């Protein structure tokens, strides 16, 4: 389905988090993009999008800061930008919309950023990219020789706010019942669970300034995922990740089983056979090793169980043949049952 298409090229906007607290999102995205044949060229000298602090303080600042990056991408000849961080994706898209729709912005923004800006580049997020690549992911998973460790694993797709809201800004998925990340989970062979907190807020930028609110919100998200049978939560936002991962200790009851929180790119990487180290898993605060070891163990058991079923079926078939063979006169002609076809051949010959 995807084989004959021209390779996809994006101007890559990593954003501050992917260079800092969420390095593993960057590492796993690059590794997965290479495997899927997606070209990423980092926007030269990119600057911060301003995140919540920018637009909360001044509307124009919240538009101009992201617009500078879009202008550079445009100048470099790109027509699409990939912004994996949900907050960056949201601000870049919001700037695009503001310049398109708000009166006077098309003239004022280039003047403020001091660059020509035609507002001609599209902005995409990582989930969108992976959803579009789902057939290719499925193909690769099916073709792999090793058993898929994610087969049947129950996962909660957590979208949070900025990936899907406001609809006018994001618009790539439904704001209340999004399915894009669930589709990616399914393409990896895992099972997306149906749960209630998909699009609830994790507390976002209050992580430092109002931690108690973040703990309250994160707790209800983790507990709801657990109650619906999820073994891990999948995210596509550095803020969601650090709130649910770094602060999880304060959210769950002492002694409760830790809930691993994976970036969607890490999940796809695991399905594509990349190693946890390549995907930056050791950078998480909630140790993913027991979870990953369990997946590998279950995959082994699954393979062993399948093998056993096959062997039992073969043994039964052999026993049946032996019965038939014993009834025939010269069963001793084939002493060591080499295989069903060779075992059957002399019998046929005998019958003639």
């Amino acid at each position, binding site marked *: 389905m995807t084989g004959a298409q021209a390779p996809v090229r994006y101007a890559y906007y990593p954003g*501050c988090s992917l260079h800092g607290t969420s390095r593993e999102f960057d590492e796993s995205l690059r590794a997965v993009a290479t495997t899927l044949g997606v070209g990423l060229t980092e926007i030269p000298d990119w600057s911060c999008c301003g995140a919540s602090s920018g637009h909360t303080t001044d509307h124009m600042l919240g538009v101009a800061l992201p617009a500078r990056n879009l202008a550079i991408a445009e100048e470099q000849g790109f027509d699409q930008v990939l912004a994996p961080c949900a907050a960056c994706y949201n601000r870049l898209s919001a700037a695009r919309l503001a310049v398109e729709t708000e009166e006077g912005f098309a003239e004022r923004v280039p003047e403020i950023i001091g660059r020509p800006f035609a507002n001609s580049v599209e902005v995409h997020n990582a989930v969108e990219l992976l959803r579009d690549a789902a057939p290719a992911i499925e193909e690769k998973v099916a073709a792999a020789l090793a058993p898929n460790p994610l087969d049947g694993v129950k996962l909660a797709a957590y979208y949070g706010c900025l990936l899907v*809201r406001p609809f006018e800004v994001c618009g790539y998925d439904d704001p*209340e019942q999004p399915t894009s990340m669930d589709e990616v989970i399914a393409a990896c062979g895992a099972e997306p669970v149906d749960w209630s907190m998909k699009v*609830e*807020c994790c*507390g976002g930028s209050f992580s430092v300034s109002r931690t108690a609110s973040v703990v309250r919100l994160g707790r209800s998200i983790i507990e709801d995922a657990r109650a619906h049978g999820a073994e891990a939560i999948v995210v596509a936002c550095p803020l969601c990740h650090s709130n649910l991962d770094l602060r999880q200790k304060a959210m769950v009851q002492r002694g409760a089983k830790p809930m691993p929180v994976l970036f969607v790119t890490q999940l796809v990487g695991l399905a594509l056979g990349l190693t946890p180290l390549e995907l930056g898993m050791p950078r998480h605060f909630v140790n993913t090793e027991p979870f990953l070891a369990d997946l590998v163990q279950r995959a082994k058991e699954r393979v062993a169980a399948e093998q056993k079923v096959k062997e039992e079926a073969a043994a039964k078939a052999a026993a049946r043949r032996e019965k038939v063979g014993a009834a025939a006169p010269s069963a001793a002609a084939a002493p060591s049952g080499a295989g069903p076809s060779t075992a059957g051949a002399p019998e046929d010959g005998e019958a003639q």
Partner: protein
Amino acid sequence: MSAHPRTLAAEIHDATGVNAATCYQCGKCSAGCPMASESDLRPHNVMRLVIQDRRDKALADQSIWLCLTCETCSARCPNACDPARVIDALREMSLDAGVADLPRTIGAFHKAFLEQIRSNGRLHEMGMVMEYKLRSGELMKDVTNAPGMLSRGKLSLRADRIDGVDEIKRIFEKCGVTP
């Protein structure tokens, strides 16, 4: 009143294009608001204050600063009122009017964050946290997380300053923002 020849609703309309009068107080926004349980004013209350032209209360209440800008209210509004955008505009007006009652920690965070961007072009988390501590007075906040963040390569000691940092300074200047 005489200090403001135009109503708050009119000013909000100019700034955002939202006609606050279209809010019929169904409360769906507040039902979904993640901060409703911690705020005195919930989104539909804020909309009501705008319609009633209660400028002093709307601009000076702390609740507008407890909004996470998660946009749930605006996504769910059955009449397309966009409370999130209105609250965003109120925050800006509240800062301009010098009546903002933003909790010290939240104000410190925004200022520390923007100062990092203005001076480096990108967020330097370590620098931001240091500045946050000084501005908020929360000196010991998250100190125990620092070694874990460092050993996981999540914090860098040096700021990643971009070449075009002067461009960023100019953007802040032209927008009239000094963190």
